[in-house]
């Protein structure tokens, strides 16, 4: 009689890092496609630029550290970081924005701490925060969705805008962003923030032309696409459900508390769930296996903490979106969370 012992945690397929990273990239594809369909194909230029910068930076640094270069390049982790950063920034930002952000993420946040697996902070989000703090003008130049853009932007225009700052006809990003009527369009989160600061209520803002259903739907569709990609990752068991579910549930709860207290000042839970980087954050950024908490309870605490920070920063903070800041702040708490949620060994008394 033969006994087949399976060791915990009972996962039959043994995945290596490159395979996991490839699946993550695959899961990002629907979001990127929807984004490029709605907002133009500039995002591909940014992704290519980011990947090139990341690979070059990684190999140069590994050479300096006298580590095998190919091994690290082949695990695709730098590529994932690059893609996450590229889809977080405005697609028409000048080329040096994404280059500086990627260099910072790869060199300082990842490799100075010892490379993959050693970094405390999520590299992509740290790079994003550096860019947002350093270059507020370029980092808030979001384009409205294509049907609302003042001038048609061809692929040549995109290349020209990214590398020289002007389109073929000589328009800047700000001019393209601002339509003939002279109003400019920010992301939905930003529009609401500005409207509330100037004294109007949310229900009023939602009715204005600035905020027509098209523009709102833009970011909603992108969020839905990332949600689909995230569900694929869940099904493939690349990520576990604790962090995304606790994050999304906590976002709903916390934003509902604020919404219930004053619906004219704070947006509804549904709005918070499908705007900004909520879904991208829930499935792709918070779940970074290196910087997130590793215990079951810890993951739930980590997800909820991020959600609380996101809602606080979105509602009363100085920046329109908050996922990046929330992730970095929660990253700092991870060692503490892990320390206090360490599972007790079987048979040991609870203390």
């Amino acid at each position: 009689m033969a006994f087949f012992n399976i060791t915990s945690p009972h996962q039959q397929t043994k995945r290596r890092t490159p395979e996991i990273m490839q699946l993550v990239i695959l899961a990002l594809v629907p979001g990127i496609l929807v984004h490029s369909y709605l907002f133009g194909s500039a995002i591909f230029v940014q992704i290519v630029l980011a990947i090139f910068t990341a690979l070059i930076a990684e190999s140069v640094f590994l050479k300096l550290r006298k580590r095998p270069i190919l091994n690290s390049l082949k695990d695709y982790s730098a590529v994932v970081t690059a893609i996450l950063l590229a889809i977080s920034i405005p697609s028409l930002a000048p080329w040096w924005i994404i280059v500086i952000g990627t260099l910072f993420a790869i060199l300082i946040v990842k490799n100075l701490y010892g490379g993959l697996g050693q970094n405390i902070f999520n590299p992509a989000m740290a790079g994003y925060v550096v860019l947002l703090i350093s270059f507020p003008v370029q980092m808030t130049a979001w384009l409205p969705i294509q049907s609302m853009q003042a001038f048609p932007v061809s692929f040549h225009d995109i290349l020209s805008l990214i590398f020289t700052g002007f389109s073929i006809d000589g328009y800047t990003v700000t001019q393209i962003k601002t339509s003939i009527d002279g109003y400019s369009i920010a992301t939905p989160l930003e529009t609401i923030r500005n409207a509330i600061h100037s004294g109007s209520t949310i229900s009023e803002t939602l009715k204005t032309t600035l905020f027509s259903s098209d523009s709102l739907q833009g970011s909603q569709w992108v969020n839905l696409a990332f949600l689909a990609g995230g569900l694929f990752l869940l099904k493939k068991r690349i990520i576990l459900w604790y962090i995304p579910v606790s994050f999304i549930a906590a976002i709903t709860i916390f934003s509902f508390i604020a919404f219930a207290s004053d619906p004219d000042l704070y947006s509804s839970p549904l709005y918070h769930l499908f705007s900004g980087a909520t879904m991208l954050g829930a499935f792709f950024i918070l779940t970074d296996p290196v910087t997130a908490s590793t215990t079951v309870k810890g993951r739930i605490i980590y997800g909820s903490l991020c959600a609380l920070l996101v809602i606080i920063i979105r509602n009363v903070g100085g920046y329109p979106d908050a996922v990046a800041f929330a992730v970095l702040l929660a990253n700092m708490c991870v060692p503490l969370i892990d320390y206090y949620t360490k599972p007790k060994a079987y048979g040991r008394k609870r203390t």
Partner: protein
Amino acid sequence: MKQQTESHSEIATENTDQALTEKNTASIYKELSFQGLWKNNPGIVQLLGLCPLLAVTNTLTNALGLGLATLFVVIASNVLISLIRHHVPKAIRIPVFVMIIASLVSCIQLLMNAYTYHLYLSLGIFIPLIVTNCMIIGRAEAFASKNNVKHSAFDGLMMGLGFTAVLILLGATREVLAQGTLFDGIETLLGDWASFMTMTVYNTDTSFLLAALPPGAFIIMGLIIAIKNVIDKKISDK
């Protein structure tokens, strides 16, 4: 603060003073310079006075201004404390040292208010805060209260120069990264004749704000310390 300075002074005492007493004069000065500028640099090795070090180094001019002020205070306090070292009861030495340093800082504050008014405004609270710079009271306790005036003055000079050098390095790096200039606003420190020193390293429409903000200071400071450690390791490997 008392506890802090005492713990720092213990470290400094071990490193410098015991070795110093037996050596001849020339090598004492050499040793003091080496300790102050490199091996026990208050900025990047002892990490003393980090608050002004990180807060005011957003431009080279600010860094230079604060560095010179600190240099003056540390030399003067070392000399005064060394002069009175046999007359101060041990039990109340720390309050006495703090009083002396505070008076010196008040002097430099009034002087800067009178002669470099714009720099005085841009350094703000960090001039009076020189009093709390642990480097100064650390040198008073660890060195000046145990050594003669000449050596104390030289120790103050070298420690002050070491601190100023770090300030200048940090200030220059941050200013170049953030604005692409060097010595911007130098006329507020040295007078109008010095305005030719302002130079533009590169022109940029958008400044790299992070370098001008406190987080940038922390990151660049960390990199400077890392470079120093690399150099030390290279030397010890040889």
